[in-house]
């Protein structure tokens, strides 16, 4: 029996024949997930650089490296998914101006440039010091990395500081645009009632902030534990506060969207209802809402009520962060895959279960998610994550 005929046998209701296949697979779930983490991590750094939240200073440099590590892998799932990956550059070279997808490359590239430049400028004193200490090929490498300037005079550092500030200020709207835009790629598809809502870019943006901050908290606590360093309690508190704030907003919008759909009960509602209480019931209501949003909200309440117990924060915060990271992953799945499970016939839905070993399967998804962690490890070899690693960084700027 043909594969699609097998799917047809498990579909419920009437599904258009071409709707049996889920075209945007696990890879397209990862794409907004990774992009969101990139944008969110950058926001953490900007809170220090732009909004002067001093308690986040320990994370100001690390969060940029974290963002860069994920940025390098953001397009990998897209390339794996494309039917003709060899033609991917056409999106850059001959973009269709009316396409909501065509701009992504430009947003991604511009944002990447800002991120890389900011990292170079923040770490320039460190890189200069390493250049001076290194020999051979390493010396050339650090010469390039320090942009061939070993000037660490007060004026030069002041100029650096201004450039960093400028890049951060420009970077905030860029990060917002990047992920708001990814939300718009989905939100602009009028044919799909689950996606077509003006709330989609907002939900994507908020979930991006949430996943970025959660990722940073998790990585920070993990790295501190591994390297047996003390966790900065004030920094942790601030992170948790922001994570909580963004998460409450994010979760509210997610619920408001469904509630509004249900209350308005337009002609699309029966299909949406059938989806949310049908094939998406477990991943949406049980996974995304009940467990992965409910538990973090309870933990948040516990943390707010126990203000001065750092040990508790250090245990509960990473747990909360991990749950929220999963929540966002579930949300991406429920949006990207969920939207495609409903047939445009409005009369039926299909099931989708990715296999482990297929081209866009689970194994590759895991590999792609491990990849940024490896990149982060390599970045850590060049750029010290924490301020006390090197005293030669710019005072008062970062990391």
């Amino acid at each position: 029996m043909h594969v699609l005929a097998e799917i047809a046998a498990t579909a419920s209701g009437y599904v258009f024949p071409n709707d049996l296949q889920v075209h945007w697979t696990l890879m397209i779930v990862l794409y907004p997930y990774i992009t969101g983490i990139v944008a969110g991590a950058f926001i953490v750094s900007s809170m220090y650089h732009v909004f002067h939240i001093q308690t986040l200073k320990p994370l100001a440099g690390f969060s940029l490296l974290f963002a860069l590590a994920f940025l390098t892998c953001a397009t990998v799932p897209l390339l794996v998914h494309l039917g003709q990956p060899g033609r991917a550059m056409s999106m850059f070279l001959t973009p269709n101006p009316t396409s909501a997808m065509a701009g992504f490359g430009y947003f991604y590239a511009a944002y990447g440039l800002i991120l890389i430049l900011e990292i170079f400028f923040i770490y320039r004193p460190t890189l200069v010091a390493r250049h001076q200490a290194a020999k051979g090929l390493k010396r050339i490498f650090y010469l390039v990395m320090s942009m061939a300037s070993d000037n660490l005079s007060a004026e030069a550092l002041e100029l650096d500081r201004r450039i960093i500030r400028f890049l951060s200020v420009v970077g905030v709207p860029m990060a917002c645009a990047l992920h708001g835009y990814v939300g718009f790629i989905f939100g602009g598809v009028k044919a799909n009632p689950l996606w077509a809502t003006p709330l989609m870019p907002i939900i994507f943006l908020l979930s991006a902030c949430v996943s970025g901050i959660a990722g940073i908290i998790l990585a920070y606590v993990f790295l501190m534990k591994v390297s047996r360093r003390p966790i900065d309690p004030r920094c942790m508190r601030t992170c948790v506060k922001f994570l909580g704030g963004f998460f409450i907003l994010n979760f509210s919008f997610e619920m408001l969207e469904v509630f509004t759909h249900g209350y308005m009960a337009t002609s699309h509602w029966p299909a949406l209802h059938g989806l949310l209480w049908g094939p998406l019931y477990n991943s949406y209501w049980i996974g995304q809402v009940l467990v992965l949003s409910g538990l973090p909200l309870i933990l948040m309440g516990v943390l707010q009520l126990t203000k001065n117990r750092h040990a508790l924060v250090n245990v509960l915060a990473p747990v909360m962060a991990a749950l929220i990271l999963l929540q966002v992953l579930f949300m991406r799945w429920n949006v990207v895959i969920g939207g495609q499970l409903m047939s445009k016939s409005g009369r039926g839905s299909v099931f989708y279960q990715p296999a482990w070993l297929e081209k866009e399967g689970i194994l590759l998804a895991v590999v792609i998610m491990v990849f940024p962690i490896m990149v982060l490890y390599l970045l850590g070899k060049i750029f010290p994550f924490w301020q006390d690693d090197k005293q030669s960084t710019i005072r008062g700027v970062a990391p």
Partner: protein
Amino acid sequence: MDEMTRLRSEIDLDRRGFIKKVLSGAIGGSLLLVLPQGSALIAQQLAGVGDEKEPYLNGKKFAFVVDITNCIGCGTCCVADKNEYQVPDGHFRTWIERYLIDDQDNVYVDSPNGGLDGFLTGRDDIPNPLRDTFFVPKLCNMCEKSSCVQVCPVGATFRSPDGFVLIDEKRCVGCSYCVQACPYSVRFINPVKKTAEKCTWCYHRVRKGMQPACVDACPTQARIFGDLNDKQSEVYKLLHEPQVISVLKPDMGNEPSLHYLGLRREVT
């Protein structure tokens, strides 16, 4: 001596000019090689396109009418289509839906194998008496404001000057955005070519003055194709007479050029 210097400088100028020209030519030429060209105005991959002596389609405005009241669900159109394009199994450029509505207004729809084998068996899972039964052939709606053209990131899906929405398979990146955006689900990714595919209203045949393959094959004239600028054409008459005629999902705002005669409100 002066003459010599003058000549030399002239030669130098020539040389400079020559080098400049070679350089700009080389750079321009390599840019042409690197930059993908814009979409072909005519889908060059369609067999026979460009062979015709005169621009057949100038001044024509094509429309497709499906007469639901005439369709018997035999599947001949689907077979003709599959043969014309070697459509891979499990994917459909055109298909037929069977609608059964019972006296409780419950709607039962199916399309086993896209109607390719016809509808040889009835349904025995409907407890109530039926009040209405009919077949609905589906194909590309050739929208005036097509979502697929709007969303294609590389312009591989385009609207030809003669009003056909076509795909340049040499440019398609296979991102599936058009598949997501089409409200009518007429698109799919060809599993062999890895590019988007859909019904073209047999553009290559129409260019030669022929009818689309499904129109030719339909034994009951349920599929009607013609030029709206020709007042003698059947489509013109059908669309300008007081008929029960509509398009699919009008609220999408896509303004399809595919019209349905006798369309029921239950059809999506």
